[in-house]
Structures are given as structure tokens and as C-alpha cells.
């Protein structure tokens, strides 16, 4: 495994800047997740590292060495795509063996068998090794395509939303699995997604992207608790942070235009009177949809609250975040 970094990388497609002045280091053995909406430059960043795109300027380094002139094969990266593209005419075993049979690697046959069995065990697909790839469920196919990356020992694993086409239950199982596999192997992983839960639960480091720019890089906890901007603050947290005009509660620092209140950062029973619009019992907790002087906000309360719609509730900020008119955090 290796450390991988980008240094001041730019990539344009015609008039569109896909990646803008990106500098990013994926430390050896880290699980870095790039989080951003569609069009933020996530996939382009992966493709630049893999060598599937060429940077307009800047450098891509693997273990400190520039790989700009290396072919994708020479870079020795393993990539997993969103759409599991398995060889349909091959069995699961043949699909898994395929990368190891590459003439460059010259892996001995017994080593191939050992590696395939090991990876199949990790991904719980040992019993399907002799099935045709087309005879698998969606979840199994995606596990095979992840397995095809894992049989190799590349410098880095690059994963492009590998779980997004799976159903919720399988996704949550595979999240825990992937995290465990990465930790066990000590693998270096760069994973891109628009799913904040994947980013928060799996990453050792999260990079938040906005229109091709890396706007914050840190542990999930740093990003959640200490966002640099309104944009970053709205990326993490379910329900989403409430962004309100700063004069709603008063007592704001100079230059603040907005106050950001995470749903759990609203004190109840004291402060201003808000109207309860709707009460949603989610089982483990209850969401309150409130309205305060024409502004909507969401807060959380006890699962068995007696509150119902049209009642009122006093609320006050607790650990608020402040942002200026441009969305930058004011500390």
C-alpha cells in the first residue's frame, strides 16, 4: 500500500472546470472518503489518480513519485465502479482470478487459488465461486466486483460509489464489512460518494468537495462539529442543520448573517415561542417541525413526547454556528 497525493491539480472539460487546484493527501493505510453532490468532481478526481484522465496542470504522486507519465497499469491502482461490470460468461472464481492472471503480474497458480479463496471468504461469497456471474443477486455481484479489486495488492483502492445501487439493508451491512476489510488489510482507500452516512461511518478522513474544489478535509467528527462553511455544515447531519437569519435570536458575533443550528442544538422549554407544525415519530426519536416567525426549523425530541401539531414550544440556541453573508464560518 502507498501514500497517494494530488498537488495543485486542475482539470477542465471545455468550459467546465471539473477539478480546481486540488491538493489532497491520502495517507498510507487511510480510508479517505470524498463527499459531494453530483458534479462536484469526485469521479474525475478518482480517474485522474487512476490515469484514466490526464491533468491539465499539477501533479499526481504515488509514494512521493510523480506518476503523470505512467499508464493506468503502471500506476498499479485497483478501481471499483458503481456499476459492477463483471464478465458475464465467466464464473465468480474466474472473475476473481482474472486480475491475477494478467501477464504483467505472473502470479503462480497456487497463489491465485489461495488469494481467491481468501477474498471470497472475506466477502462471504465462497459458496458461489462456481456460479456464473449472471446467476448472482445485485449485492453478490457488487461483492464480486469489490473482490476483484481485493485479490490484488495495489498501491491504492479507488472506489466510485460502489454501494449506491444496493438496497438499504445490504448497504449498511457492506459499510461495516468494507470498513473492517480496509482496517484488517491496512489498505489505502479513496472512496467517493454523495451519501453522507457512508462518509461518516467509514472514513478515517473526509474531504468535502464543492464545484471541483476541496473545501474541507478532516476526520468525520471534525467536519461535523467544526465545519468551515455553511456549505460543509449542510453536507453532514440528518435531519440537516437549520440555517436561519441571525437576528432571530440576537447575541451574534459581528459580521454574522446566518445562525446554524443542528437539530440537536436547540434547547427546549426556554427562549422564543415556536409553533409545532408536525410531529414525526420515527421510533427511536421524534422529529418536530417548528415554525418561528415565519421560518421553518426541525428539532429532535424524546420518542414518546406528548407534543402534537398546533401546540407551541419555547426554543433557544445551544452551541450555535455562525456564518457570514458569503457562507464562511465565523468563530
Amino acid at each position, binding site marked *: 500500500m502507498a501514500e497517494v497525493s494530488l498537488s495543485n491539480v486542475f482539470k477542465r472539460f471545455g468550459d467546465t472546470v471539473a477539478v480546481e487546484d486540488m491538493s489532497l493527501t491520502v495517507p498510507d493505510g487511510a480510508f479517505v472518503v470524498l463527499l459531494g453532490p453530483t458534479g462536484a468532481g469526485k469521479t474525475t478526481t478518482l480517474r485522474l489518480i487512476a490515469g484514466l484522465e490526464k491533468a491539465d496542470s499539477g501533479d499526481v504522486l504515488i509514494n512521493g513519485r510523480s506518476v503523470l507519465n505512467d499508464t493506468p497499469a503502471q500506476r498499479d491502482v485497483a478501481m471499483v465502479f458503481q456499476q459492477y461490470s463483471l464478465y458475464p460468461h465467466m464464473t465468480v472464481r474466474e472473475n476473481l482470478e482474472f486480475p491475477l492472471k494478467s501477464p504483467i503480474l505472473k502470479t503462480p497458480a497456487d497463489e491465485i487459488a489461495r488469494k481467491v479463496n481468501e477474498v471470497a471468504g472475506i466477502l462471504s461469497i465462497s459458496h458461489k465461486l462456481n456460479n456464473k456471474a449472471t446467476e448472482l443477486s445485485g449485492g453478490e455481484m457488487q461483492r464480486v466486483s469489490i473482490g476483484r479489486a481485493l485479490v490484488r495488492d495495489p498501491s491504492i483502492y479507488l472506489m466510485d460509489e460502489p454501494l449506491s445501487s444496493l438496497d*438499504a439493508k445490504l448497504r449498511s451491512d457492506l459499510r461495516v464489512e468494507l470498513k473492517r476489510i480496509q482496517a484488517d488489510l491496512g489498505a489505502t482507500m479513496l472512496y467517493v460518494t*454523495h451519501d453522507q452516512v457512508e462518509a461518516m461511518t467509514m472514513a478515517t478522513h473526509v474531504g468535502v468537495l464543492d464545484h471541483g474544489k476541496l473545501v474541507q478535509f478532516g476526520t468525520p467528527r471534525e467536519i461535523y462539529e467544526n465545519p468551515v462553511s455553511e456549505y460543509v455544515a449542510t453536507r453532514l447531519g440528518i435531519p440537516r442543520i437549520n440555517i436561519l437569519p441571525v437576528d432571530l435570536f440576537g447575541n451574534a458575533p459581528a459580521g454574522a448573517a446566518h445562525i446554524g443550528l443542528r437539530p440537536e442544538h436547540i434547547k427546549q422549554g426556554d427562549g422564543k415561542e415556536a409553533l409545532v407544525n*408536525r410531529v414525526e415519530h*420515527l421510533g427511536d426519536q421524534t422529529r418536530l417541525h417548528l415554525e418561528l416567525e415565519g421560518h421553518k426549523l426541525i428539532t429532535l425530541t424524546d420518542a414518546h413526547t406528548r407534543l402534537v401539531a398546533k401546540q407551541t414550544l419555547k426554543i433557544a440556541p445551544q452551541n450555535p454556528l455562525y456564518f457570514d453573508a458569503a457562507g464562511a464560518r465565523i468563530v
Partner: protein
Amino acid sequence: MAEIIIKNLQKKFGDFTAVQSSSFTIEDGEFFMLLGPSGCGKTTTLRMIAGLELPTSGEIYLDGEEVGMKPASERDIAFVFQMFALYPHMNVRKNISYPLVSQGMRKVDVKAKVAEVAGILGIEDILDRPVGGLSGGDRQRVALGRAIVRDPKAFMMDEPLGALDAEFREHMAEELRALHDRMNATTVYVTHDQLEAMQMGDKIVVMNHGVVEQFGTPQDIYDKPATMFVAEFIGSPCMNFLRFDGAVNKGDTSVAFANQTFGIPKQIDERGGKLVFGVRPEHISLSDASGYRGEVLASEYLGTTLIITVATPNGDVKVRADSAQIAKTGETVGLDFNPQTITLFDEANGAALASELNEEIFDRG
């Protein structure tokens, strides 16, 4: 608007039973969810209510009238399919007007009705635009408009938000629910997404393999699951199951396994053999004092909370803890369970055993 009563409804396709003798009541003005995995019979049930499938047996009452064998056109129900099913060659106004025009309504009345619906949905400014260039949200509003415009007795919706991405879905779910609260129209909504069902529904029917597993308010179904299937299908992460061999007697307030004794709600049913101790993740806490111990396998940070996976002598459990809690992978921790929230199940048939916590769900049948 209308009350809908389903009695012993059954549907067979050849040898395959899609819906097995279902009974439940949808009250006037309710937002009612049919929830279950694919193939559970929820869509077939919805289609029978709408009149798109005829039942093999059983009755459907719409406002007191038995309509089971009536054609869809005589039921006065609006069906909203996966959104975006618009007439592509018509503009927004024509799409919304279509059901009224085809009923032969006078032009001035159509115009007034469309204006009213456009006002409810906030789409007055796009009425003359072609539907081709609309955003996803606007297309969805137009599809809804076409359903609302007829003032039907009830709305049927089949996974209307299924194709949307998470963020937009959340937004549209809120909008749909707000629309319902303004119009108070009886709505039957099919989904496989438990969070969507909990969030939007006044009541939920949980179905599996054509059988109604449970019927009730979201909080009741969450707190008092009638079966292991419901306990597992609702909640994220779902209810934890600790499997053990043991016995409970009527009046017991504790149960013993793994050399420990655990408090439970006062039992009504008695049972011995293979039992399951069901506990929700937020009702487990880490406790040094507890003699019931396990190894931390993983911890997942979620901002406000932390999900900690612990390997216990009775299987892996997930604990929902405060995010300030520290749990290192590999460390051994003790677990405490909140006794009043526990449900015991009989593993053989997956049914909950009655206790003081859940007895009313059995009264209802």
C-alpha cells in the same frame, strides 16, 4: 373523502397467493402506509383497492359501499404511479386539465379548477410551460396536480418517491405530507422504505409474503412489534435479537440466559424452548458494572449518535450511544438493557409473546 374498510381480502394469481386474507381499516382523512419488502403483496393490495385488480375473495368498502367487484372508473379513486408519468406532448395546464376535460367538464369550470390546484401546489407560474423542460420536483407536482384535480374520494400512491435521490426525496416527502394536511384527503401509500413510512404515515400496515404482520401507529409498531419480521423491518439499525434456550412463565418479570438475569415487562404468555430477547439499539447502554459482556467489533460515527457493534454470547448487537461515548474496537464492554422495552419472541414462529408492554396489540387481533 372516504373511509376504506378491507375485510378478509385475498388475491391469487394461479397457484400463487399474493395477498392472504387481509383485514384493516383506513379512516377518513388518514395518510395510510402499506409497507413491506418487494413481493409482499402491498402493491397488489393497493391495486385491488383502486380496482385495477379484482380480489379472489373478500370485501372492500369505500364510504360504506362494497366496491370489490366494481371497475376502477366507478370507484372515484385517483391513482398516482411512479411520478413523472406525464403526457410529454402537452403543457402543464393541459396535463392537469386532462382528467376534467375527458369527464366533459365545462371549459370555464376546468379553468377555475386548474387554477385552484395550481395554487395549492404552488405551480401557477409554470402552467403554460411544456413538461419536457421541468425540474424533477415540478414534474412531480404536475403529476400530483393531475390526481388532485378530480377531487376523488381517495388517493392511491405506489412508491411515488422511489426514483428520487435521498435529499430530494426527503424534501418531496415533506411536501406531500404538507399537501395532505391541507387537503385532508384519504391517502393510501405503498413503500418499501421504513423511514418514509414512519415519517409520513398516520398508520402503517406491515406486510410480508402476502400476510398482514401488523397494523397500527408508527410509534406502536416500533415499540411493540408483533413479530420478529416487523421488529427487523422497522428501525435503523433494526431491533437486536439475542437468541437463547430458556423459559418464561406468566407473571415473570425477568428471564435468565448466559448465566445472567435480565428484567423484562411482566409476562402474560408463557413459553419454553428457543426464545429470542428483542431489544432496540437505543435501549442498550454500555456499563462497566454489567456481567453481560462482549467485544466491540465496530463503531460508526453518525454525528449525534454512535452505533457500536458488540459481539455477545448470544450474537452481535448494535448499540445506539451518544457520540461522546468512547468505544474502541477490540475492547470488552458490559451491556445493560432497559427492561421495560424488551419484547420476547418465540423463535419457532417469530411471534411476540404477550406482556404488559404489548398486550393491546393482541387485543386488536
